[in-house]
């Protein structure tokens, strides 16, 4: 069975001293996504958030639960009889959205869920813990539903290359003696640290080329069968990948300017561009590829 893309939405955060919080970006994208599909929030069975740079670094509850409350998905008395919404977060860096889609695909395939939403957003942490997150403030959401035939997303694969784990790292770290504000001296401060090695994208291309070759072979496809290559980190990553795998560069699609470096929502931005241009609907075989810290390469096949 395939999993169909029911609708998709992206929201930009404004630049400036008070950027929107990750939760607000996620809420906005989720609402836009529902509106575009003509759906109600109460129809969502599964809500998975894959965003990482969350407001104040919140670690509990799952941000998905807060999004669920904000958009009004089954908040009232406990629903029974197979209804209700189950929300949780998935952490897999820039591959998190593909991982969440893979999980949603499983529950749609088994019939345990009929409609799933995947949300991702990243923002500066906000408040006194603010640090410079080197990614655009952006949020994205997509709705997935089951297809009776074998169209839509039909195959997912993930590969890891831990020898390159140090090329992209992010973490919250207690730094002794850091100040909060000009006057208040404190023992220290928890600060979000994001470190990307200049070699990260080039090594990701190497890893992805290996993973895509294997994926296409498993799927019984050749590079020439790929009508559309949708990837995060446009243009460097997909262009390098196309060159290495023999996929024509004319078949690349990237996110709109300004969203090209969107972090966890980067792949949603690229999918949004592919869907809104009509190129996704026209493609027989669309390959979605993500590079993430690890190095982790996630791949999904969308078939018409």
């Amino acid at each position, binding site marked *: 069975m395939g999993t169909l893309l029911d609708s998709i939405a992206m929201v930009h955060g404004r630049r400036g001293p008070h950027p929107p919080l990750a939760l607000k970006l996620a809420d906005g994208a989720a609402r836009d996504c529902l509106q575009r599909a003509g759906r109600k929030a109460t129809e969502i*069975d*599964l809500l998975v958030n894959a965003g*990482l*740079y969350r407001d*104040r*670094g*919140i*670690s*509990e*509850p799952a941000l998905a*639960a*807060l999004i*669920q*409350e904000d958009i009004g998905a089954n*908040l009232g*008395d*406990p*629903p*029974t*009889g*197979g209804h*209700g*919404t*189950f*929300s*949780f*977060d*998935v*952490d*897999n*860096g820039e*591959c*998190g959205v593909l*991982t969440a889609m893979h*999980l949603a695909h*499983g*529950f749609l*395939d*088994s*019939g*345990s*869920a009929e409609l799933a939403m995947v949300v991702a957003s990243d923002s500066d942490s906000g408040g006194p*813990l603010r640090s410079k997150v080197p990614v655009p403030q952006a949020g994205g959401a997509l709705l997935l539903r089951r297809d009776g035939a074998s169209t839509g997303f039909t195959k997912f694969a*993930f590969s*890891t290359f831990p020898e390159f*784990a140090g090329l*992209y*790292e*992010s*973490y*919250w770290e*207690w730094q002794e003696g850091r100040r*909060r504000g000009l006057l208040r001296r404190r023992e*220290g*401060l*928890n600060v979000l640290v994001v470190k990307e090695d200049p070699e990260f994208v080039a090594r990701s291309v190497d890893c992805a080329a290996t993973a895509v070759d294997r994926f296409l072979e498993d799927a019984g496809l050749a590079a020439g069968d790929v009508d559309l290559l949708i990837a995060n980190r446009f243009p460097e990553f997909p262009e390098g990948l196309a060159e290495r795998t023999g996929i024509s560069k004319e078949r690349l699609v990237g996110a709109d300017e300004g969203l090209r470096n969107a972090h966890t929502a980067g792949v949603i931005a690229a999918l949004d561009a592919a869907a809104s241009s009509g190129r996704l609907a026209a493609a027989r075989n669309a390959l979605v590829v993500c590079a*993430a*810290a*690890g190095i*982790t390469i996630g791949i999904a096949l969308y078939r018409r």
Partner: protein
Amino acid sequence: MVSEASGDGASGAAPSARFESLGLKVPGKRLSSEELMASTKHKTRIELERLTGIHERHIVSGGEDSLKLAIGAAQDCLEHSRHSAADIEMLISCSISKYTRHYQHRLEPPLSLYIKEEIGAPQALNFDVSNACAGMATGVFLLNNFIRRGEIKRGMVVSGEDISQLGVNAAKQVRTVLSKQLASLTLGDAGAAVMVEAAPEGAPGIDIAGFTTLAKHSRLCLAYPSMIGPGASMYTNSRGIQSAAIADAPYLIREALEQSGLEYGEIDYSIPHQTSARAIRKARKAFAERLGDSPKETIINVEEFGNTSSTTHFVALYRNLKDGRFAKGDRIMLLALASGLEIGVIIFTMDDLVERYGHAA
């Protein structure tokens, strides 16, 4: 509730999943409630042990952290398993705390990557799940789906919770029992792991796994990187979350029982999320009144461990397996109650797992 019960499925009876082995890694160092309360900055007059039933908790020391606890638990799980690390097809890390080194909370790469590499399972598909204290139960819920659909044969859910530091931070600010950081004083550290595999045809396994999020209660317990010390701080409306859980969980327990064709009284052991002995006893009484019956026993193990967050169910399961408390055929219900408000019900039938923990049927 989004759920999957044995026997249902889109194309006839789907195969069952079962718990194949469990692992535990508990730090050697212990901290009593008396010692913890003696360390508070303010004179509180809080009788923590009397209020919660928590005598002590295990705490990390000597360079232990979330990652090391998770790896230790995964290795212990493999030692009790028929399988090797090379057989693991999926590894899900589910801890709230993701500390390595000195309270460095890792976001990328996910902890699951380091765990699978350390235990020798590089082939496993890996990712992290974050779902508060329902993390490991959520991981089992996900693996159950993959196994039932035949996409994988087995996977491991693992979590290392290094959360006693939240108690250290809370001790700097707690003044009365009304403090929103009171629940942080109940926390203890532990790593747990469970191997989930496809059950042989006709063998018992997971009868049902289901979850719902009652998000109108989503803001009753929030945790962030701390403003007052290394690690995190957690702010909980303990009464609010307990009231919501007591009011709403019976609906979902009833639904899970109906789907699996069971009566509440047929459950041999209930293992609820371990917060405090008083809260668990209160919930047990309320559930019995609402559901008209009770499981034969409700397991409480907070006295030694406190609340070990996402690992509590599997710490309790492991300890009671080792103690020889379970027998083949026992029906066990894991009840996840976590901030969100997440309510999860996993009911399974004990099989020859007992034999691998030193006990005959």
